[in-house]
C-alpha cells in the first residue's frame, strides 16, 4: 500500500438557495494514495465540480477535514485567511487543475502558457518545450490557443500541468468537449503520463469509459442522492 | 370702444410671466390674475356703476387698464380722405386708491405704465409711432381738470370749459397739430356706461364723444396738409375686460351721412362671439344694441385681415358694407393690430374707423 496523499473525512458542503439549504456533499470520506487515480462519477449536478473545488481549496467545506500533502485543513477554522493562503501555495506548487475548456491564457502562445505555469510553480521553464513535444504538439509551440484545435488545446493544458510536476492532478471533464477519438487520445496521454510520473489523479467525469481508466471510482450520484 | 391695450409688456417684464398669448387673450387682456401687490384691490366695473363728469375724463388708478382714444376721418384741402389716430393707454402694475398719495418721482415709481400710439393714414400710406413711459414721473399722465393727457411731447389738452382741445403728436416722417371742437355731451354705452364684454359679465366703463369737429395741420414727410373733418373720442376703463378664451375683437365707429352714428363691436372666441353696440340716431337718445339686434359678417380678407364687412341692424333698416381703403394699416407696435378708416356704402353712406385685433396678419 502506497502512502496516503489525500485523506478526506466527513466532508460536507451545502449551498443556500433562498431559504433552503441544499446539501451537495454529505459526510464524505475517502483516501487516495500517492500515484493512485480516482474517478469521480455521477450525473450533472451531483457535486463533482464542487468536490474538485473543495479538494483544491477554491471552495471551503462546511464540515470535515482534508489532509493533503501532509497539510491538514479543518472546516470552519478560525484562521480562514491562513487556510486560503495555504491552499494557494498548494495549488501553485502541487495541484494541477484541468478544466473542460479554457485552461490557457488566450494572449500567450502554447509554449508561453506552459512556461508561465511552470514558473509560477517554481519549476524550470526550460523543459516546457519538451513537455509540448511529449504531448505531441511540439511543432505548435508558438501558436496561440485560438489557432489550434480543441484536442490540441487540451494537450497543451496537460503539458502545462505536467510541467509543474504536480503531486495531484484534478481534472474536471477534461475531454468533455472533444470528439470520441480525440477524447480517447487525450485520456490515454493523461493516464500514461500520470502513471509514469507517479502523481495522483482525481478525474471528474460522467463518461464511464474514461472512469474505467482509473484505479478507483467514487460515484457521487450514488452517495449523494439529492 | 374696446381698445387694444399693450402695456402688458410691462407685466411680462416685471412679473416674469410669459409673452405667450395662450388663454390670456389678445395682449393679455383676459386672465389677468396678477395679484395685487398692496392691500388695495383693483376695482372692477359692474352694471350698477355710473359715469361722473368731469372726473371720468381723468385717470382711474385703481383700475387696471384704461385709454383715451381718438380716431378721425378728415379731408385735406384737396378733398382727399385722411385718417388719423391718437391713443394713450394706462396699465396699472399696482392699483392705487384715489385717497393714496402719489409716489415721488425721485423714486422712479412703477405703479403704472403708459403707452401712446399715433397714426396717420393717407393715400394708402400708414404712418405709426409708439411711445412708452412709466407713470407718476411727470413724463406721462392725465388730469381731468384741466383736461390733459400726455406722454413725452405728445399732448392732448382742453380749455377751461373743456369744449376745445388741442392735440399734438409726432413720429418719424409725420406730425399733427389739431384743434378739436367738442359738440354735444358724452354718450354712455351699454347700461348707463357699463359696457358688457361677455355674456358672463366682464366689461368696462365706456363713454364716447361722437360730435367732434376737427381742423388743423398734418405734416407728412415734410409736406404740410391742412385738414378738417370729424372725430370720435372714446374713454374706457376696466380691470378685467375680456373673458378667458376671448381672442380678439372687431370694433367699428361710423358717421353715417344721414346724421345717424353707430358703434358696434364683436368679441371673438373659439365657441362663437359676443356682439354689442350703440345706435346713435340723428335725433333722440342713443339706443344700446344687443347681440340679437346686430349682425356682422366678414366679406373679404387682405393678407389675413378682414377688410370688407357687412354690418346690419334690421331694426333700423340698416344694411351696411364697410370697406377699408387700399393699403396696410397694421400698427406694428409691441402688439400689432389693425386700425384703418372705412368707407360706408349700402343702405347708408358715410365714413368711420375700424379696429381689428387678434388676427394673424400675413
Amino acid at each position, binding site marked *: 500500500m502506497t502512502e496516503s496523499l489525500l485523506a478526506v473525512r466527513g466532508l460536507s458542503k451545502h449551498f443556500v438557495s433562498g431559504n433552503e439549504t441544499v446539501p451537495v456533499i454529505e459526510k464524505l470520506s475517502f483516501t487516495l494514495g500517492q500515484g493512485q487515480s480516482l474517478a469521480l462519477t455521477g450525473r450533472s449536478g451531483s457535486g463533482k465540480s464542487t468536490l474538485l473545488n473543495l479538494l*483544491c481549496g*477554491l471552495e471551503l467545506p462546511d464540515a470535515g477535514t482534508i489532509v493533503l500533502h501532509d497539510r491538514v485543513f479543518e472546516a470552519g477554522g478560525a484562521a480562514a485567511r491562513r487556510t*486560503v*493562503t495555504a491552499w*494557494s*501555495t*498548494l*495549488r*501553485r506548487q502541487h*495541484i494541477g*487543475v484541468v*478544466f*473542460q*475548456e*479554457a*485552461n490557457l*491564457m*488566450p*494572449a*500567450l502562445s502554447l509554449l*508561453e502558457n506552459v*512556461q*508561465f*505555469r511552470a*514558473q*509560477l*510553480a517554481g519549476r524550470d*521553464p526550460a523543459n516546457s518545450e519538451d513537455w509540448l513535444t511529449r504531448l505531441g504538439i511540439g511543432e505548435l509551440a508558438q501558436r*496561440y*490557443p*485560438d489557432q489550434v484545435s480543441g484536442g490540441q488545446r487540451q494537450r497543451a493544458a496537460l503539458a502545462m500541468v505536467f510541467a509543474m510536476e504536480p503531486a495531484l492532478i484534478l481534472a474536471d471533464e477534461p475531454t468533455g468537449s472533444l470528439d470520441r477519438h480525440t477524447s480517447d487520445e487525450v485520456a490515454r496521454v493523461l493516464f500514461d503520463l500520470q502513471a509514469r510520473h507517479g502523481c495522483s489523479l482525481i478525474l471528474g467525469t460522467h463518461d464511464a469509459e474514461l472512469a474505467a481508466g482509473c484505479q478507483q471510482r467514487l460515484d457521487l450520484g450514488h452517495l449523494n442522492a439529492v | 370702444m374696446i381698445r387694444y391695450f399693450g402695456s402688458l*409688456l*410691462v407685466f*411680462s*417684464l*416685471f412679473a*416674469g410671466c*410669459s*409673452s405667450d398669448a395662450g388663454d390670456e387673450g389678445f395682449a393679455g387682456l383676459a386672465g389677468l390674475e396678477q395679484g395685487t401687490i398692496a392691500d388695495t384691490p383693483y376695482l372692477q366695473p359692474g352694471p350698477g356703476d355710473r359715469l361722473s363728469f368731469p372726473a371720468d375724463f381723468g385717470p382711474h388708478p385703481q383700475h387696471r387698464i384704461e385709454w383715451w382714444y381718438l380716431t378721425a376721418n378728415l379731408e385735406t384741402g384737396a378733398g382727399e380722405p385722411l385718417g388719423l389716430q391718437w391713443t394713450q393707454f394706462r396699465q396699472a402694475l399696482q392699483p392705487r386708491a384715489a385717497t393714496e398719495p402719489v409716489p415721488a*418721482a*425721485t*423714486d*422712479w*415709481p*412703477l405703479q403704472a*405704465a403708459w403707452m401712446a400710439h399715433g397714426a396717420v393714414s393717407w393715400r394708402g400710406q400708414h404712418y405709426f409711432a*409708439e*411711445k*412708452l*413711459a*412709466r407713470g407718476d*414721473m411727470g*413724463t406721462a399722465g392725465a388730469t381731468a381738470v384741466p383736461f390733459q393727457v*400726455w406722454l*413725452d*411731447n405728445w399732448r392732448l389738452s382742453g380749455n377751461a370749459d373743456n369744449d376745445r382741445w388741442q392735440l399734438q403728436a*409726432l413720429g418719424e416722417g409725420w406730425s399733427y397739430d389739431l384743434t378739436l371742437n367738442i359738440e354735444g355731451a358724452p354718450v354712455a354705452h351699454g347700461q348707463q356706461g357699463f359696457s358688457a364684454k361677455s355674456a358672463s359679465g366682464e366689461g368696462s366703463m365706456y363713454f364716447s364723444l361722437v360730435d367732434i369737429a376737427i381742423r388743423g395741420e398734418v405734416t407728412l414727410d415734410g409736406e404740410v396738409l391742412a385738414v378738417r373733418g370729424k372725430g370720435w373720442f372714446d374713454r374706457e376703463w376696466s380691470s378685467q375686460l375680456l373673458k378667458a378664451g376671448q381672442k380678439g375683437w372687431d370694433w367699428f365707429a361710423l358717421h353715417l351721412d344721414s346724421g345717424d352714428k353707430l358703434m358696434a363691436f364683436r368679441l371673438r372666441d373659439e365657441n362663437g362671439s359676443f356682439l354689442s353696440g350703440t345706435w346713435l340716431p340723428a335725433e333722440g337718445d342713443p339706443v344700446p344694441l344687443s347681440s340679437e339686434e346686430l349682425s356682422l359678417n366678414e366679406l373679404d380678407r387682405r393678407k389675413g385681415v378682414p377688410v370688407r364687412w357687412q354690418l346690419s341692424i334690421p331694426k333700423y333698416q340698416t344694411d351696411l358694407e364697410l370697406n377699408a381703403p387700399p393699403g396696410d394699416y397694421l400698427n*406694428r*407696435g*409691441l402688439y400689432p393690430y389693425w386700425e384703418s378708416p372705412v368707407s360706408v356704402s349700402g343702405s347708408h353712406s358715410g365714413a368711420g374707423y375700424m379696429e381689428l385685433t387678434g388676427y394673424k396678419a400675413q
Partner: protein
Amino acid sequence: MKGLPSLFSPTFPALFLPRALLSHYRRHPLQLLALAAMIVIATMLWTGMNHLTSQARASLDQSERAVAQRQQVVRDDGRALVVEDFVSLRLAGVCVMPWLEVTPETGSRLVGIDPLAAHCFGAGTGASQALDQPLDGKPFVDVHAAASISARDSHLYLLTPETTQTTGLPGGYYLKTFSASPDTGELGDSFVLNLEALGVLVLLITALLLRSVYLLGLAQRRDSFALLHRFGVPPGRVQRWLALEILALSLVSVVPGVWLGRWLAAGLGSGFGEALDGLFDIPLYAGQGQGWITPVLVMLAVVVIACLGDLLLLRFRERFSLPLPARAALAIALLAAGLAMAWLAPSLPWVFIAVALVFAGAGWLTPAAIAHLALWRAGRSKAPLARWRFRELAVLVRRLTLPLVALQFALAMVLAVQALVTTFEDTFDRWLGQRLEAAYYIEVPSRTDGHKAAAWLTGQQASAPGLQWHRVIRGKAQLADAENPGGPQVDVLAVAPVGSLVRAWALLEAAVQPWGALASGEGVMINEQLARRQNLGVGDSVQLTLGAQPRALPVLGVYPDYGRPVGEVLLNAATLPDNFDVRFESLSVTPGELGITQVTSALEQIWGVNELSLRDNGTIRELATGVFDQTFALTRAMTLLTLILAASALLMMGWVFFSARAWYFRLLVVWGMQQREVAGQLLRLALLVTGGIAVLALPLGIWLTWVLVHRINPLAFGWSLPMAVYPVFWLELAVLNLAIGLSIAALMRRQLGRPVVAPVSASALMGGER
C-alpha cells in the same frame, strides 16, 4: 416546438424578424437602456455645449453693445442730473434713458435702468437692442429698485441714442460720450470661435462613444444573428431592420437629449442673463429661437453615421481593406499631413481640416501604438507575469479602441480648453489691469483745461506720497508712408507724464529703455494690430500726421490690445502739436495719501464745475470681468462633463471587457495566485491603459492649445494670445485618469470573488481574445 416549423417556411410572419431582434432587448433591457442613455447623454452634452456657445456669443454681443461707447446728455452748468432733467428732456421730445448707478451699503454696484424709457432707443423691438447688459451676473435692475436701495453712492446718467443731435436738445444741455468699460469685442469673438471649434470636437467624441456602445450591443447579439442566419434570414434584411431599430431608438432618445441639453445649459447659464430675463421679455439666449431642429437633426445624423456607418461602408471596406502596416503608414501620413498643414495653413478652413486630420491620425494610431508597445514589452519580458500583463494590455487596448480614443480626445480637449480659458482669463485680466491701472478715472469737462489740473497735480506730487496720475488724450492721426501719403487713420492715445501708470504695461516687443524714450518724445509705441497690419516692428519708423504736422517717429515697442480691430499709436502727450484735435480728455489718478475727495474738490475748483464725472476703475473692472468669468466657468463645466462622459463610457466598456475575461483572471487564482495578487495585476493593467491614454493625450492637447491660440486666433483676428501650459492641471487630469483605472480595477476585484463560468460560446473561444 409547435411554432418552429413555420420559421423554416419560406415566408415568415411579417413581423417575425423585428420581434426576434427585439426579443434580445426583452431579455436584456439594460442593454437597450444603456444604448438609449448613451444617446440621450451624448445628445444632451452636445446640445448643451452648442447652446452654451450661442449663449456665450449672445452674451458677449450684448456686453459688447453694452460697453460700446454711447452718448449721454449732461448739463451745461456741470451740475449732477436729477429726475427733473429726465422729465424735462422727455417732455421736450428727447429720447433719454436713465442709467442710475448705485453702490449699495453692502454688495456690489447696481445699475438701474428703465426699459419703458428705453423703448425709444430701438424701433419696434423694445429696449432689448439698446441695452442688454448681462455684466457681472446681475447688475441691472429696474430703476425703481435701484432708487429704493439704501446706497453709499448713486449717480444718474441720461443716455441717448447715437441719432440724437445737439441741435435737438433744449438749452442748458449738451452731448457727451458715455462708456461703461473698455470694449471687449474681439476678445469675446475669438473666444466664441474657439468654443465653436471645440463643439465640433465634442460631437466627434460623442460619436465615438455612441459607436462603441452600439458595437458592444451588436457583439452581444451576435449569437442571435447567427441563429437568424441559420433560419435562413438574409443578412441584408437583418441589417435593414437593425438600421430601422437604431433610427427609431435615436429618434426616441435624441429629443429628450436635446431637451435635457437645453435645460442643462439654461440651468448652468441662468446667471448669464437672469437679470435681463427679468427686465426684458425677450428670448435671451440666441440659440433658443432655432434651437430645436438643428441639434435634433445633427444628433440623428451622428447616431446614424456612428452606428450604421459600417453598413454603408461595408462594401467599400471589403474592397479597400488595408493590411496593418499600410494602415499604420496611412495614419502616420495623416498625422504628418495634418501637422504640416496646421503650421502652414493660409486660412481658417485649412486649419480646421488640419485639426481633423491630426485627430483622425492620432485616433487611428494611438490604440495601435499602445498595443504594439505592449507586445514589444511583452516580448522583452523574462518574467512570465509581466509578459502576460503586457499581452493582456495589448488585447485590452484593441478591444477598447473606441472608448479609449474618445477618452484621449476628451482629455486633449479638456486640456486645451483649460489652457485656453486660463490664457484668456490671464490675458484679459492683465490687459484690463494695465488699462485701468489708476484707481480713478476723471473726465476733463469740455471747455475746461487739462493743463491747469496737471499743473495742480504736479504741485501735489511732492507732498502726497503714493499719488500717481497722468493725462490721457485721445484723437486721430493719419498714417503715411513714401508710396501712400494718405494712409489709414489710426487712433491716438497720448499720455503725459509717461509715469508708473503706463510703465507697467507688458510689451510684446520693445527697444532698450522704451518708456524712457517715450517719455522724452523720442518715438511711439503701437498696438499689435497695427504692427501686424502695417508689418511694423521695433526700430521701424512710422510716418504720422498729427494735426497738420507730419513727422516720422521710431517704434519703441508693440503692446497687446485685444479690444478693437483699430490700429493705435501711443505717444507722449507733451509732444502733441497745439492744433491736435482732442476728441476726449481725461485724467487717470491714483490719489495715494491725498484722498480722492481732496482731488475732486480741488479739480472742481480749478475747472469751475460743481460735479465731476468720476469713475472707480475697480468697479469697471469688476463689471467687465464678470461676463468673462461666467463664460469661462461654464466652458470648463461643459468640457469636464465631456470628460466624465468619456470616462464613464470607458468604465462601462472596461467593465464589460473585464467581465468577459473574468474566467482567465480567475485562472490565475486556480494556478495558485492569491486573489489579492490577481487584483493587483488587474489594477496595474487598468492603470497602464488609462495612464497610457493620459500620456498620449498630453501632446495632442498641447498641440490643440497651440493651434487655438497661435493659428486660429491670428488668422481670425489679427492678433495672437500668449501660449501657456499648465502642468498642475495635467497632474489633475492624470489623477482623474488613474481614478478611472482604479474604479475599473475595483469593479473587477468584486467580479473575481464570484464564481465564474468558463467562456463556452464559439465566438468567445475562437476569436478576438488575443
